[in-house]
């Protein structure tokens, strides 16, 4: 098209740099497929971004902290500026954290940003996970990514715990002691495991250095890898979207990555950083100087882990102190049972997608999200899980509930013991009813329109409320979901009158399927025909 040949034309500098890079990295191909990647707009799709950005903030501030933190348990005497600890013996880890907090420029702010960002990171992951759960975004093809996300959440818990333990203060030391107790409660190998982790009898002189490399190297390394895989899969699967006009299972309606989402996401990073920095600037977190250095002979009341481990604390606090003594050995069921339940609580939510897929037998891909009300059983299960989690959190903070609401700690413990079983069941029933009510309302809205609040008097004296019909787009959105039919086992005898063999597993599946999609569990969505019938009859209904 041009008379000037390539060799003669002097390309602009930017293009030459890009050319240079393309020749070596192949960026044009990558950019072509990814720069115009479309993302749908919804605030709940940004919850994952909150996690990503707080993770980046944690890494940035964490690097700064490693420059000044000494992961050593050598005993030193404190001579820093904080008067109430002057002359007190403490580990180098604690002393260097004191140094970061009181002497390093910006140290306390960075420490608080690091810790607040960690709380936000894990809270964000939980909320993000719940968003994915309640909208059914974990369905095929995203099951693996669901597991990646779950692993990130689990690793986040342990990275948080190891980080919380590093300053070697009296609070976290009590947590580390707690963990020793947990290990010791494991039958047969417990004492070996504890000795192995702490390099001898607790507390020993090793655990800070060990937790340090786990906290700054091992776990974040794995998490970074999982995070990248998680994001690559998000790109590969494309983002899910809520149903709406023009949105199908085969397209994504939204804005392109470049320039719109680059700007939005980039801006959102700074907003997240800003919010966390403001929190860290105004609110104290983990004031280790107030807790004092760890000494195995000291302990304080109100020793709790950070919130994300609170439910495990709750499990242990509410467990009766059962133990079995036999043949000179003690089996501490009061600790061992809770630590067996602890991972099960988490795993319960992780395996849910596979259970649901098995019940529905659905092998198709799903890119359109469910509205939680349209899947009452799943929503009920999710709310039941959250209820269990919250009740256990109450158990973990039973002393604070007691002092701040003037209750008996024993009564709270009994409440938690009973409601950790009853609460989820009640929550499930309530949620399911609620969802069905919302489905009925949707059906009503589609068929009869929205209540306008305008009362009309008819010539013969009757009063009616005028209903405004919905716009077609709204009606589409309310009726776009598909409704499964419950699985039928078929007749119990075959054509020859011989009893058919149905495996118990099949029976269970049919039962679950009925629970999911039977008449009790979903309200039939209005059909076009029903709508036609109602609207064609000209008068009111």
């Amino acid at each position, binding site marked *: 098209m041009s008379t000037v040949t390539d060799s003669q034309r002097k390309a602009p500098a930017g293009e030459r740099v890009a050319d240079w890079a393309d020749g070596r990295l192949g960026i044009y191909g990558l950019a072509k497929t990814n720069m115009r990647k479309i993302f749908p*707009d*919804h*605030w709940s*799709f*940004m919850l994952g*971004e*909150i996690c990503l950005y707080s993770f980046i903030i944690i890494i940035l501030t964490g690097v700064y902290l490693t420059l000044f933190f000494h992961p050593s348990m050598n005993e030193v005497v404190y001579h820093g500026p904080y*008067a*109430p*600890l002057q*002359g*007190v013996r403490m580990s180098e880890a604690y002393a260097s954290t004191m140094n970061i*907090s*009181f002497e390093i420029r910006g140290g*306390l702010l960075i420490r608080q940003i690091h810790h607040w960002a960690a709380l*936000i990171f894990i*809270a964000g992951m939980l*909320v993000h996970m719940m968003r994915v759960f309640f909208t059914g975004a974990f369905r095929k093809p995203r099951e693996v990514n669901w597991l990646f996300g779950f692993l990130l959440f689990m690793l986040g818990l342990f990275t948080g715990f190891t980080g919380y333990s590093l300053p070697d203060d*009296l*609070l976290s030391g009590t947590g580390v002691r707690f963990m020793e107790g947990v290990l010791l409660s494991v039958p047969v190998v417990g004492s070996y495991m504890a000795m192995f982790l702490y390099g001898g009898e607790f507390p020993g002189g090793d655990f800070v250095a060990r937790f340090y490399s786990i906290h700054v190297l091992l776990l974040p390394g794995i998490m970074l890898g999982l995070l990248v895989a998680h994001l690559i899969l998000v790109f590969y699967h494309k983002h899910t979207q809520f149903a709406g006009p023009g949105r199908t299972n085969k397209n994504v309606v939204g*804005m392109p990555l470049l320039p*719109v989402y680059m700007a*939005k996401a980039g*801006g*959102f990073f700074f*907003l*997240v950083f800003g*919010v966390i920095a403001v*929190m860290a*600037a105004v*609110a*104290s*977190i*983990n*004031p280790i*100087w*107030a807790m*004092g250095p760890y000494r195995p*002979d*000291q*302990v*304080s*009341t*109100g020793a*709790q*882990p*950070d*919130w*994300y481990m*609170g439910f495990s604390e709750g499990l242990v606090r509410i467990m009766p102190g059962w133990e079995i003594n036999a043949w000179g050995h003690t089996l501490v069921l009061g600790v061992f049972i809770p630590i067996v339940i602890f991972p099960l609580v988490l795993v319960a939510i992780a395996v849910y997608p596979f259970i649901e897929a098995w019940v529905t037998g659905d092998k198709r891909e799903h890119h359109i999200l469910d509205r939680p009300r349209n899947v009452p059983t799943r929503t009920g299960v999710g709310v039941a899980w959250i209820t269990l989690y919250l009740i256990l959190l109450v158990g973990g*903070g*039973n*002393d*604070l509930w007691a002092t701040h609401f*003037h*209750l*008996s*700690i*024993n*009564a709270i413990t009994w409440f938690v013991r009973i409601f950790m079983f009853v609460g989820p069941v009640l929550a499930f029933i309530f949620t399911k009813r609620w969802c069905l009510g919302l489905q009925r309302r949707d059906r009503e809205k589609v068929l009869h329109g929205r209540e306008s609040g305008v009362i009309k008097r008819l010539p013969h004296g009757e009063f009616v409320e005028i209903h405004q019909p919905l716009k077609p787009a709204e009606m589409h959105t309310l009726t776009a979901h598909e409704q499964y039919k419950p699985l039928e086992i078929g007749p119990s005898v075959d054509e020859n009158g011989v009893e058919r063999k149905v495996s118990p597993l099949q029976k269970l599946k049919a039962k679950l399927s009925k629970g999911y999609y039977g008449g009790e569990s979903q309200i039939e969505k209005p059909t076009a025909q029903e709508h036609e019938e109602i609207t064609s009859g000209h008068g009111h209904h």
Partner: protein
Amino acid sequence: MKKLSARRRHPLAAVVVLLLALAATGGLYAAFAPAGTAQADETSQSLAIDEGKKLYSVGCASCHGTGGQGTSDGPSLVGVGSAAVDFQVGTGRMPAQQPGAQVPKKKVIYSQAEIDQLAAYVASLGAGPITPTEKQYDSAGADIAKGGDLFRTNCAQCHNFTGEGGALTNGKFAPSLEGVDAKHIYEAMQVGPQNMPSFPDTTMPEKNKQDIIAYIKTVNGDNSASQGGLKLGGLGPVSEGLFGWIFGLGALVAVAIWVAAHTAKAKKS
């Protein structure tokens, strides 16, 4: 010496030794025991006791008995000492409003003069810990760091790291130490009110009590600094988690909704 040695196996030797030991203990006790009311100015002291008895009959006798001997509703006050009265009445715990797991502090209804009279009367029922003088509980010049160490060893189990208080069984609790008078902290350690163990001078010398008071006043007093910003109750991870969820994640979700609501408009062609 030989005589003594020869008779040491005499049947009555044990009795003699026992008598000697009893005499020695009794004598030593008489010599060193707190003087009680004996040395005070007789007239003003007995006047205070008389006044205190009147106050006692009106405000205390219904539960503690007319002579302080105790009833099913309240313990005996014989031997609790004036320090216990000064603490219980001086912090408003007594007279109690109602029975319960623990009597909480409330508005003080007696004047200090009346409290002193009540204390004098109760102290006259039997010797016990005496209300400390200002010099005893004055923490100026005390070792704060030592106090912190002692606090974490002896007090933090119930009162939390910096004296924010904590829960005990069945509705009982260790109260917050924020804003508590140095005198009352000292007295509490001396007498061990309600569910608290006592720390008499034999286990916790006066100097150590002063150290502890100095520590509490430094980390949880009226002028204590909170180096990291808002203290969030000083309760540790539970209140931090609550703050993180409500204000941190809450703000971020609000920001996310705001960002999502402001999307690029399609270009008008």
